[in-house]
């Protein structure tokens, strides 16, 4: 092949390669297919990264509710935690496409406020799911778990279970800049009846809310504070990881968590986790979409904060804190 041709061929290949790589990247970001049936109206559903099954379940519930009511649906998701840019683009597209309502699970409490205002100025009903904007009134209404209350429940349970034993607490957090993470953390301390910086808190560490980082964090904390006997974890995967560290170190630690996934509830049944708080993403998605349908039909916009529920799940109930057992949990849990 003459040199020029070879370079040209290579350049074409390079371009093709770029195209393939780009297509791969875009495939992860592209909004879901738009359904073209029914003649009611178009609704936009914006979620956080689907890497987290909780957000997947919440989105599916919202989409199912919309389709059951004959609506056309447009979906979009943030690609990583805190990725508000993708969500802003998605909202712009939805405004242009003429949606009548949007359910939004904001990746950032303040970054989404201007675009939500633009949508509402255009007459679109915007409600938040899972977590809200700051101020909350930036959207029409909020449908979410009261994460502070969820934290309070496991804090109270841990306090009552420890009875008069001295507590040495480890906090396995997720980034505390995250609203949900902060609320759960604060709630646990409140429920336990202590303030930030209390000497009963032996140590704290950041996890990514998965088993691997939960395990490493717990190993390091146990190494420094072998007397830790109570832990708070941001979610069940982190708790399961922490349990590997506890088991290896042959310690006896009260493990508390939040989420209510099926795998988490099974961990309650097998004793890995002492207590967890179940959230209700299915109800969350349904309530949010139904509020939009009602607003479009009757012109009555929803408003305010709507708690979608928190239930303490444990097989070791304590007096004064309502709870359900793991059997109920397994029947009610929202997914893996």
């Amino acid at each position, binding site marked *: 092949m003459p040199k020029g041709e070879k370079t040209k061929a*290579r350049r074409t*290949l*390079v371009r093709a*390669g*770029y195209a*393939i*790589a*780009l297509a*791969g*990247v875009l*495939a*992860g970001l592209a909004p879901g297919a738009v359904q073209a049936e029914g003649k009611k109206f178009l609704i936009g559903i914006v979620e956080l990264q*689907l*890497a*987290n*099954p909780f957000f*997947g379940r919440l989105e599916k519930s919202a989409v199912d509710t919309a389709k059951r009511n004959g609506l056309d649906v447009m979906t979009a998701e943030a690609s990583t935690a805190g990725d508000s840019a993708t969500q802003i683009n998605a909202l712009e597209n939805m405004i242009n496409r003429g949606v009548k309502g949007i359910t939004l699970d904001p990746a950032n409490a303040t970054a989404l406020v201007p675009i939500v205002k633009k949508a509402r100025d255009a007459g679109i009903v915007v409600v938040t799911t899972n977590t809200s904007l700051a101020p909350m009134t930036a959207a029409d209404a909020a449908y979410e778990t009261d994460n502070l209350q969820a934290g309070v429940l496991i804090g109270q349970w841990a306090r009552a279970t420890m009875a008069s034993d001295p507590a040495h607490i480890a906090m396995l957090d997720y980034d505390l800049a995250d609203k949900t993470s902060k609320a759960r953390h604060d709630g646990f301390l409140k429920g336990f009846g202590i303030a930030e910086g209390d000497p009963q808190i032996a*140590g704290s*560490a*950041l996890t*990514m*809310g*998965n*088993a*691997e980082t939960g*395990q*490493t*964090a717990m*190993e*390091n*904390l146990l*190494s*420094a504070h*072998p007397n830790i006997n109570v832990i708070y974890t941001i979610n069940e*995967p982190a708790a*399961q*990881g922490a349990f*590997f560290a506890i088991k290896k170190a042959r310690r006896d630690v009260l493990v508390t968590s939040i989420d209510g996934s099926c*795998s988490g509830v099974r961990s309650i049944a097998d004793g890995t986790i002492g207590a967890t708080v179940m959230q209700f993403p299915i109800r969350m998605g349904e309530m949010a979409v139904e509020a939009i349908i009602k607003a479009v039909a009757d012109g009555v916009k929803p408003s305010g904060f709507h708690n979608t529920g928190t239930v303490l799940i444990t097989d070791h109930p304590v007096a004064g804190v309502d709870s359900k057992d793991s059997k109920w949990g397994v029947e009610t849990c929202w997914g*893996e």
Partner: protein
Amino acid sequence: MREPAPAIASLQRPTQSLFAYPIAGPLFALIVIFIAFSLTTSTFMNAGNMSLIAQQSVVIGTLALGQTLIILVSGIDLAAGAIMVFGTVVAGSVAWHGDAVPAMALGFLACVVAASINGLVVAWFRLPPFIATLGMFAIIAAAARLYSQSRSFPITSDLLSVLGSGPELGMLTVTYGTMAWVALTLILGYALNQTAWGVRVYAIGNSPSAARLNGVSVTPVVLSVYALAGVFYAFAAWQALGRTPIADPSGYQIANLDSITAVVIGGTSLFGGRGGVAGTFIGTLIVVALKNGLTQAGIDSLYQQIATGALVMLAVGADQYLARGHRA
């Protein structure tokens, strides 16, 4: 610009000065870290915690061996962690529904195939490694989620989780995973330093055109580097299942960056051709010991990240300084 002269110099370099001292810096840093934490905390320097640091090192340490190979040929692999996670998810899901042996085989195959595709795209189609592996990162991470439907699989098979166990001598547990990490480092170190293939890898890293002029067939060697890196990613996947017996598609999200950090802190040059696995071994220990010690000292995680970031910049700065020294 005279090409041939530096080319010859570069072929001799790895065997001479470069292996004499590049791990001195990282080794010094590691010793300083150990002394500092031994003095400031009462819980750092004991057998139990040393064994913990080793256990916390094996996944990133094994992954970083593959990353070292790729960086030595002036590449970079942003997909390393995602390929490893894909391997764990494939093995975990197959074992969940059936047998551990085919699960293990398929997990290994998945890692080697994915890494080899990177190699093909880089060596044959001449895409910049950054772009090729960025694309692969997005594809393979999404593939792992689609394949697993974002659920995780508990590992019950002894074969898949064997690397997490090992003999206990009092407080000191030496896991098979730790032994495997040391063994893999030694084997790869031998291959890089004592074989003709290793000399070619360094030569290509220094200057592909010079290597070509010296009769090295660049494309097959680069391909072999990526494929072999895939083998190390597969071992890393096995290590991950041993350490945390859950195959979780959301695990190890920044393992790609962690592995690059370990390689760079270990003194391997991002420009290729300089460094090696001994440095990466130490670099991994530095990153892990720093996190372990700072957590025990009660330092906030965000300050831990700052400390690691500063070390990376220091290491790259030192590398630049050394490179300039060599040219002069």
